[in-house]
């Protein structure tokens, strides 16, 4: 654990080369429901931000607005200084730089594991097939599923599928990775294998936005915890501060409900 905190401190000390993701005054409605209310959030390069909160608080929606899988009603989102473009080629190009990992894995069911990791490289980045395959195999080894390369997603366990999904996102060399409840659909014994891959990623300096219920991960890997409730960011703090001494009543209430089991 000490190794982790050293790495974190080193990053904190390094001059932040600008803000990578900036949300300012973002609002979104689902019909009458105001799911995102005046959200302001800035994520620096190399930072690991964990978003937690009760279900229905808008944290998944927040995550999905960052690569415009959800549109917003007002406000602005910029990634690496560029505002999110309208649907089209330009948005596709930008999405290639933003990795996303879903709760339900969403691996391409008709493609093998290897093809899943190669497809974005060859079709979006126009990488040579050979080169793409070499990279895909290296990434699959890195997340520990190298031996499953020729299987179809349905033949893998949930934990393995999610690690493939992480490899698929990493294959695009993303500037930032979004994790939308990556372990919520997993059997308990498979959660750790996914979290370990994410820990490693955080240690390697990847910028990450993680929506999760894994408080252990938040404690050990996050630079900052963002607590959301009812569509608003209620509290932002370092993990130590947040878990030992939450300021808002809403956060105290939330923590008391989840930490006493």
């Amino acid at each position, binding site marked *: 654990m000490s190794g982790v905190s050293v790495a974190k401190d080193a990053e904190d000390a390094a001059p932040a080369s600008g803000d990578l993701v900036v949300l300012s005054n973002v609002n979104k409605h689902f019909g009458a429901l105001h799911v995102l209310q005046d959200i302001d959030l800035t994520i620096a390069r190399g930072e690991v931000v964990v978003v937690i909160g009760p279900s229905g608080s808008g944290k998944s929606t927040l995550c999905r607005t960052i690569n415009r899988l959800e549109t917003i009603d007002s406000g602005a989102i910029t990634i690496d200084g560029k505002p999110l473009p309208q649907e089209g080629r330009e948005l596709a190009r930008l999405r290639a730089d933003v990795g996303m990992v879903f709760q339900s894995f969403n691996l391409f069911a008709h493609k093998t594991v290897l093809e899943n990791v190669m497809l974005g490289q060859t079709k979006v980045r126009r990488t040579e097939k050979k080169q793409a395959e070499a990279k895909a195999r290296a990434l699959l080894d890195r997340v520990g599923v190298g031996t499953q390369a020729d299987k179809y997603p349905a033949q893998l366990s949930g934990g393995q599928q999610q690690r493939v999904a992480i490899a698929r996102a990493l294959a*695009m060399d993303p500037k930032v990775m979004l994790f939308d409840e990556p372990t919520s659909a997993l059997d308990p014994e498979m959660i750790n294998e996914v979290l370990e891959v994410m820990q490693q990623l955080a240690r390697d300096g990847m910028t990450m936005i993680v929506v999760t219920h894994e408080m252990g991960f938040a404690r050990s890997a996050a630079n900052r915890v963002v607590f959301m409730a009812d569509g608003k960011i209620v509290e932002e703090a370092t993990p130590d501060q947040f878990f030992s001494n939450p300021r808002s009543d809403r956060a105290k209430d939330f923590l008391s409900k989840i930490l006493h089991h």
Partner: protein
Amino acid sequence: MNVLLDNFSEFRDGFIGTVEITAVSSVIALVLGLLLAGFRVSPVPPLRFFGTAWVTLLRNTPLTLLFLVFYFVVPEIFFPGMSSFLLGSLALGFYTASFVCETVRSGINTVPLGQAEAARSIGMTFTQTLRLIVLPQATRTVIPPLSSIFIALTKNSAIAGAFSVTELFGWQKLMSDQGYDIVPVFVWVALGYLVVTFAISGAFRLLESRMEVAR
């Protein structure tokens, strides 16, 4: 005397005509139907409108009326001198395309939304997402209803006979004009159609079982 053996060359021409118009309009219907389905799920509103308009207009028009339009209006305005075979194929193909479109669209809807979201999240464009991720997975569910559509197309091609296209059903009129007993004539015509429709359903069943292995 035997109605089939005495008039076999006409019967053969009619059968080949039916196979030809079925093949050509099937290709038109399939290509156009896929394109229209793409339009109908596209994020571009004018394309969506075009797809919807096409389906609404052509699916709800009696096919005979469509043939009338194609034979008497289209050549006047667009393509004077187009062969009756081509006009018939276009009418049948355009009409069937609207059914293919809706079938493909229902297939698209069976593919979980997450598949398209994952494709878009790694930077695929709408067309790439549809072509590489969604349509291949929709194919399996679309094949059984498509088979019915193409069988219906085969039988609908009989209408082209009334518009001076040589095809199987037209042979019946030829024979009854010559005074042959109508019952055996219809039996032979029916058998001719069965050969084509059985071939179609067989081909689709083969396709279906092959898809199963690929999964």
